[in-house]
């Protein structure tokens, strides 16, 4: 009776390929030894590969992959896990030789001119030595960091070598990390705003000054969308703005390109708007948490200071671009913008909490209260006052928090097992000037996140950038902060395809636009965005961030 549209590949093949690749990826480091990578680094590489395969091909939901990542880390990499529970570093006390600063050690303790000093039963420190001579099973090495009686790790391939296991609570704790709490606060504000129609009413009020001329309406829609999506999820903002845009589109004939512009303007603005605040989209969280781990904290207001000008320039260029590409034929519209603000007690409480939270976030630099702490104000305020009830709490996008938490957890292990450094160390990055590195990072992030989830892209790339900064591989001019921010921004500029972001998918579903329209404008905006961001990164951000 029915023949479904035949797909080139049935859905199960993608699942099967994803699962197979993931499992193979996980197994490779167990069977193949990579020089210079610790045992824990091998384990982490396995986790990294399975996560990358699963995140990219999605044989299981991406949040489930995050949960899998945390599970694997707890089991394989935590102090309390079966591998590390009773493990101790094998010790060897160096033997002095006749020669000054030359020591005899077992050759199993040496790898690529590297020896690990045993600083405790479960901790070690890497030092470089100079090999003088080898002799059946022993090596004579020269080093001024070794003294008589120094204990070194006798087996360089021991599981504890080069890795100090973290407690399982570190991995689990990512779900309660300040950035996650910050997001939770943002989610709850957004849920409350939707529940009491604040988003719609605000839209109607904000759109009024833009009049009835098509180009101004578009500009208004884009600005309002960007503002809302800075604080709400891009997707929810798009869905809400579409309810405003669709009645406008229905006033236009089907041939009028204005429809295309209308349908494109909203996802573009929503995607861009997400960049504006730390809570705008999940990739921002990955960036901020990775930087926090390196002791580089970025305040809420600081983030806005660097992001908002970028967003504005990109919004305006997208607007100008669409004006040229899809000139409207219609000249005037009727807009019905009736706002009816809820004036119930709960709604008033919500408005108050909303306003206070946003103000406190933006002024973080002035009062010094971290945004994660401020986020507890809406969490507490909205539940204590019953503005949000049990059902509302249940329907929050918890899976997004898990997704981010998994990303943060993976980042931690990539850092402290040396995997990230090992991955980037194969190339001599220091020959490239920073501007080229930023461009490469931005481009790779942009390309990947067009096909992958933005958060996943950030998760995979940020640890690499961070390790380049911390390891010094990239040379002196490299700024860890600016590179990470660049990657984060680039992830949010991906809007080439309907699958790039949920807002794109929503816009596509209206049927007003073709994929080609989206690709055309998406690629131009991506490239413009990349270069504008680069310009900011070189000329403006250092003034704010460094």
């Amino acid at each position, binding site marked *: *009776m*029915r*023949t479904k*549209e*035949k797909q080139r590949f049935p859905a199960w093949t993608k699942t099967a390929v994803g699962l197979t690749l993931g499992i193979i990826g996980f197994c490779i480091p167990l069977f193949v030894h990579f020089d210079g990578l610790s045992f824990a680094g091998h384990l982490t590489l396995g986790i990294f590969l399975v996560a990358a395969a699963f995140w990219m091909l999605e044989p299981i939901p991406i949040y489930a992959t995050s949960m899998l990542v945390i599970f694997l880390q707890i089991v394989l990499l935590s102090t309390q896990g079966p591998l590390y529970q009773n493990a101790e570093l094998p010790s060897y006390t160096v033997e002095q030789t006749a020669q000054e600063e030359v020591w005899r050690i077992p050759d199993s303790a040496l790898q690529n001119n590297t020896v690990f000093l045993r600083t405790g039963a479960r901790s070690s420190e890497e030092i470089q030595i100079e090999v003088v001579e080898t002799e059946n099973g022993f090596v004579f090495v020269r080093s001024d960091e070794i003294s008589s009686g120094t204990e070194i790790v006798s087996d360089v391939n021991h599981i504890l070598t080069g890795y100090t296991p973290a407690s399982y609570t570190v991995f689990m704790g990512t779900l309660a990390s300040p950035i996650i709490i910050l997001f939770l606060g943002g989610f709850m504000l957004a849920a409350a705003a939707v529940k009491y129609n604040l988003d719609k009413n605000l839209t109607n009020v904000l759109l009024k000054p833009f009049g009835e001329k098509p180009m101004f309406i578009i500009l208004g829609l884009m600005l309002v969308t960007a503002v809302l999506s800075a604080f709400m999820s891009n997707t929810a903002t798009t869905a809400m703005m579409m309810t405003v845009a669709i009645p406008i589109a229905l006033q236009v004939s089907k041939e009028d390109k204005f429809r295309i512009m209308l349908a494109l303007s909203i996802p573009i603005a929503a995607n861009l708007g997400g960049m504006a605040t730390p809570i705008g989209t999940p990739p921002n969280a990955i960036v901020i948490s990775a930087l926090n781990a390196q002791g580089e904290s970025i305040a809420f207001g600081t983030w806005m200071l660097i992001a908002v000008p970028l967003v504005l320039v990109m919004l305006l260029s997208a607007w100008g671009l669409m004006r040229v590409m899809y000139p409207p034929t219609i000249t005037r519209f009727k807009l019905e913008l009736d706002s009816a603000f809820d004036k119930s007690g709960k709604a008033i409480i919500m408005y108050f909490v909303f306003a206070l939270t946003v103000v406190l976030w933006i002024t973080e630099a002035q009062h010094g209260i971290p945004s994660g702490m401020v986020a507890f104000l809406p969490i507490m305020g909205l539940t204590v006052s019953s503005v949000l009830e049990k059902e509302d709490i249940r329907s929050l996008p918890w899976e997004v928090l898990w997704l981010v938490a998994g990303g943060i957890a993976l980042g931690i292990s990539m850092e402290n097992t040396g995997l990230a450094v090992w991955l980037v160390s194969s190339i001599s990055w220091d020959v490239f000037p920073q501007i080229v590195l930023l461009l490469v990072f931005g481009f790779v992030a942009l390309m990947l996140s067009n096909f992958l989830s933005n958060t996943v892209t950030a998760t995979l790339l940020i640890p690499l950038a961070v390790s380049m900064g911390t390891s010094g591989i990239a040379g002196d001019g490299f700024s860890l902060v600016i590179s990470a921010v660049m990657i984060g921004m680039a992830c949010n500029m991906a809007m080439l395809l309907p699958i790039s972001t949920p807002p794109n998918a929503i816009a596509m579903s209206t049927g007003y636009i073709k994929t080609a329209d989206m690709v055309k404008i998406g690629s131009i905006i991506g490239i413009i965005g990349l270069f504008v961001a680069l310009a900011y990164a070189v000329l403006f951000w250092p003034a704010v961030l460094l």
Partner: protein
Amino acid sequence: MSSEDKYMRYLKESREKVQKRSNTIGIGSSGRRLDKNAFVKNIKELLPGSELLSSHYQTYKQGEIILREGQENKRLFVILDGYVKQSKQTDEFEIAIDLQGPGDFMGLLSFQTGERVFTTARASSDVEVLRVGQSSLDQIQENYPEISRVIQGLIFSNLSERYRRVVTLHMEIAQLSRQLEEERNNLRDTINELEKTRNLLINQEKMATLGELTAGLAHEINNPASALLRSVDYLMRVLPDMTEQAGALPDTGLVRHFLEAGMSREIRSTDQQREKMKQLQERYSHLSRSVIRDMSELGDELLEKVASYAKSDDKPKSLRLLLDSHKAGVFLASIQLSTGRIGHLVKSLKSYSRDSRAEPEVADIRLGIQETLMIIGNRLKDINVELNLPEIPMVKCYVGELNQVWTNIIINSCDAMEDKGRLFINCGTSSDGEVWVTIADDGPGVPDNLKSKIFESSFTTKTAGGDFGLGIGLAITRGVVQKHSGSISVRDRMGGGAEFIIRLPAYKGK
């Protein structure tokens, strides 16, 4: 209580009234009171001791005739106890005249005048009388002078009482006839009223039938009308494009070919079409379902022809054009069909409802039956109608009214069968030259005890609230048939169900 009884009681009451009056007033030449009761009592006291009196004592059983009208009578009867009914025989029946009781005299006139007995006297209860002849009366008068005086007085009083009662009766008759006149007037009004109600009921019945018919017609006409309207809409939309694009095809004759094929296409069953769609969708998986649906309507030969356009994605317009051509043909055929159906319906309706006030015409009643079936077709969707209508003589009739007959009976059958079953309609000529039509169903049938009643105007098996006014349907039907000098009856169909038989005289003229 019979009218006779009623009348007797009336007589008794009026007698007592008159008697009471005469008793109290007192009548007699002496001015003394003449009391019948006292007189009777007196005689009864004397009876045991008097040979003379007791020899005239006589009893009658209830119902016994004491005096018969026309006989001779030489005796005078004095009623001592019980009641006697006086009546007079006419040619046809007996009329009660009077009721006499204790103290009254019977046979007074014939006894005195020697004429024959004028009224029959019958004991209406057990009666005791003193029966005396002229000689005995003289003797009694001699022996009992005090009685004789009373007797004379009583005779006179009796006569005057009779006279008074005649007068009173006259007055009462006059009054009664006035009442009667009044009641007759009332009755006439009532009859007028009834007549009006009956007409109203008949009208209601007609309206009910009309309602039934319009509802059915609405459906019958709406379906083709929908198809018609929508087909025209579609053609108006695609024809301009078709004419414009026809030149793009290498072979412009193709469009014509597809159009003509569409006009003569045979409709596939939905099952077959589904099967075809499945096949096509497997073959042309890149085509959308609506295109596949249009293709599934093509015959195999046409499918061959479009195959080259359907295979690749680069000629969607040509494929569309050919499919549209075919579809346009299909819709043209559909328009023809629909207009034909509507036209036919309207024609049927016109002849069905021919004006019944016009002169009767000589007609073939089978046509009327067929028109009726057409018009109430929506009721017959689930009914298998088996028609057997051989040639029959013409009938002089009001066609419109006879159509009402068919409608009523068929709808009646539908109701009985709850719109599911079989309907048999036959006709023929009987040996005596009458035309007969039978309309039978295989429903529950008519119970024997109701067979005679269903043509009565108050008969209905329908519950209130549902269908209205139909209780009178078969009565009207009978009325119409009788108006045509025909008859209608019902009997059991062989094999269950009811069969109505309508007989109508065949038209004998040229």
